[in-house]
Structures are given as C-alpha cells and as structure tokens.
C-alpha cells in the first residue's frame, strides 16, 4: 500500500466515522490536552467533587467522580480541558 493510498484510506475511514455519529451526550467525559496543560492546579482547586488531581504535571480527571459541571473548563487558563 503506497503512502498516498494509506492517506486516502484513513480519510475515507474518518469521513465514515464522521457520518455515522451523532453529537456527544451532555454528560460526555471531559478530556485533558496534556500538550497544553501546564499543571497549574487551578482545576484541581475549583473542582467541588475532588475528581481532578495533578499528576506528573498534568491534570487527570477521574471519570467515576466527575459530574461534568464544567467549572474546570471555565477556569483553565490554557484551554486544555474540553
């Protein structure tokens, strides 16, 4: 398989996935972009549910405790949580 064929295959696969899905649920798990997170801990301090810890310089969200209140999204100075 040539490199061009691989790219076309991946693009078609991505488009098929795109067309097969509906939007996220209101309680979809949040995610942390570790390349943007600076480990400042503001999300950890603001979370009322004790669901966030900064580990090795990155925020880690516990999906079993997170209530999707989005206060961490609102407070994050780097836009790293969404």
């Amino acid at each position: 398989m040539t490199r061009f064929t691989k790219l076309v295959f991946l693009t078609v696969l991505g488009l098929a996935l795109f067309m097969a899905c509906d939007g996220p649920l209101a309680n979809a798990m949040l995610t942390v972009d570790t390349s943007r997170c600076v480990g400042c801990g503001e999300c950890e301090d603001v979370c009322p549910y004790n669901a966030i810890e900064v580990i090795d310089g990155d925020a880690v969200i516990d999906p079993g405790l997170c209530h999707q209140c989005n206060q961490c999204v609102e407070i994050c100075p780097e836009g790293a949580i969404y």
Partner: protein
Amino acid sequence: MKLFAVLLFSVVSCFAVNFEGFARMSAVKDSINYGEGVRNWGQGGFRIGGDNWNILLDADKVMSGEGAVIPRYYRNHLEAQLEGRFTFGGFTVNPEIQLDKDIDSAMVVLPLSLGEGYRNSALRPGLSLSYSLPGVFSVSSTGRYWKRDITALDSDVEDTEWTNLNYGADAVWHTPVGGYLAVGGVSHQTRLDGFDYDRSWSRVDISAGYEPVKFPSMTFLTAEAEYSLYTGEDYTGATLPDRFTARIRAVQNVARNVMFNVTFSQAADLYEDETRFGPFQSALKSQYKFSGWGNSPSSIMIGGQLTESAITTRLGELEGRISLVSGLSALITGKLWYGPSSVAGTGGYRTREIIGGGLEFRMNNGLNTFVIYEREASNLAPNDVWGKIRGGVGFYPAQF
C-alpha cells in the same frame, strides 16, 4: 529538619552535584469572582541531582477566596512534594510523597450525594518503576495511594477517610518501520470509610501511531489512534463508554524561522446501544523566530483553538519573547477565550480577554528572573478589569 540539612550538606560535600532553586508567585483576581474572588499562589523549592539521581522538593501555597457571584469551593492549602529519581542503566526508580494541608475548612462534595464535607489534609505516597531501551522499547508501572481526611457534614459519621488506590502499567514498542504500538492500563478504587461507598473503574488503552513522516516541502505528519476500553460507572451509575480517539498533527516549515503547527483530534464514544462523537479539537499555531537586539533568541507565536464536546470553547492566543539587550527580554502575552459559564445572566457562555507584558532577565551564571502583568476583562455585567501579576526567580543549574 536539622537531620535533613546535615544529610543534604553531606551529599553536596561528597559528590559533584547540580543544584537548581526556584521561587515563583502570582496574585490573581479571577473574572468569575469579581468583588471577592482572588487567588494567590506561591511556589518554592529546589532540585538537587547528580549523574544518575535527583531529588525534588516543591512546596506550594494557594490562597483562594470564595466568589461573590457563584458558590465555589475554593481552597486555601499548603502542598509539599518530595520526589526522587534514581537511574541504573535503563532502569528508573521514582518514589514520591505529597502532603496536602488545608488551611481553612474547604468544602468538598462527597460521592453519590452523600452530602458535603470539609477537607482537612491528604497524604499521597507513590512509586514508579520503568525500564527503557531508547528508541526501541519501554515499559513502566506506577502505583499511588491517596488518603484524605474529611469531616463529613449532615451525617452521623463525622470524621471519615476518602481513600483512592490506583495502579497502572504501560509498554511502548517503537517499530523498525517508523511507528509505535502501545498498550497501557490503569485501575482506580475509591472508598469512603463509614459510608457504603466502594467503587472502582479501570481502563485499558491500545494505541498506535505513525511518528513524524517527512514529506517534500518540509512537511512533517504524525498520526495516532487510540482505543480506551473502560469498565466501571460514572457518578450517575451509568456504564462508562469506550472511547476511540484519532489525532493528526502536521508541522509545516515555511522558512528556516517560520513554522505552522496544525492539530486535529476527534473522539468517538461507544455506548452499549449507540456511538456518539466525543471531544473534538482543532488547533493552529504559527511561530516566527528572529534574533532580536540582544543575545537571546526571540520568537512570536500566534495561535487559535476550537474544541467541541458537550460544550464549545474557542481560544485565540499570542505569546512573544523579544530580546532587547544582553540578557534582557520583553515578554508579551494575550488571550481571547470563549467558553461555558456558570455565572447567572451570561446565557451559559462568556468571554475572557487577557493582555499583558513583562520583562525577563537571564544572567550568565544561571540566574533567571521574570515579572509579568496581565489585564483581564470579560463580558460579565457589571464588568470590571482584573489584574494578575506573576513573578519568579530561578537558579539553573549550579554545580558544586
């Protein structure tokens, strides 16, 4: 303390070691909490190390006020972390311990609507072990145990322990044809003594990636795909869905000193009866490097990001460091952020506009100082202008 000082002095006296010291602080008024909201943060510590070991002591003090507009469970706490890293050949042993002491009585919501409580203190020991054969194979395992002392309200149980045990392992193989395969897993167990709460969840990640592929005209492309298999439940008792995430990152060098970096990431959540989109991110960063007037490298970065999940955020940003004279640089920062808001009357969304500037001075002996002031405003009414000042001093590295 005396014993620690003697040990430290002994180590310094006997071996050639590197020493890095740092102290940073910030004083912030947060746009969410106008009127009363303020968050002051101070950090200090040092790292001391040799050829195959180093020890880090890091102490943070955070003072946060409760907001006048919306109830937030901000904390005033002191956090200290002691971490060691020792290497023997390809093996690394990384013990750590973190102590967290709340100064005031900070509120926390207990799981499963069991009421509220006060955080008092927390202790978190951990240990990581890893082995790496650079460029070929690496494997690591980590275990941590949190023990939090909580005073529960609205309950017969006054003093309780909120404990969390987690452990995980991962392995990465860098294939000879330029990609990588990775398998990892993590398991969490959370318990609340005195309450009938004992829950656990786990995740297994299988990921593969094609590491930077160089195309003609100075383009580098990285593609990654990851499947995360979850077991366990969220706070409502619903089963956590599996998640498939695909990422593509492209770096385009237009000239020797101009670079564009584009990232796309899309997740899909696989529930038992349907598949839905998860978080989406697209981001663009452009960077221009130049020499400036002094002897330090200068650069300006302009970027933007769009994220969509159950909520949408948009971010535009500007960062710059411009060398002025020998050792002295000007710092520029700016952000325009649009995202969800829990403040009443904002329609669920708000904007934050941040612009600031400062100075940084680096001396040849490793001393680095900086101070930066940022001005922040938002679309909240009544509107106001908030300030943030950050400063710091560091000493990197000195050898004895």
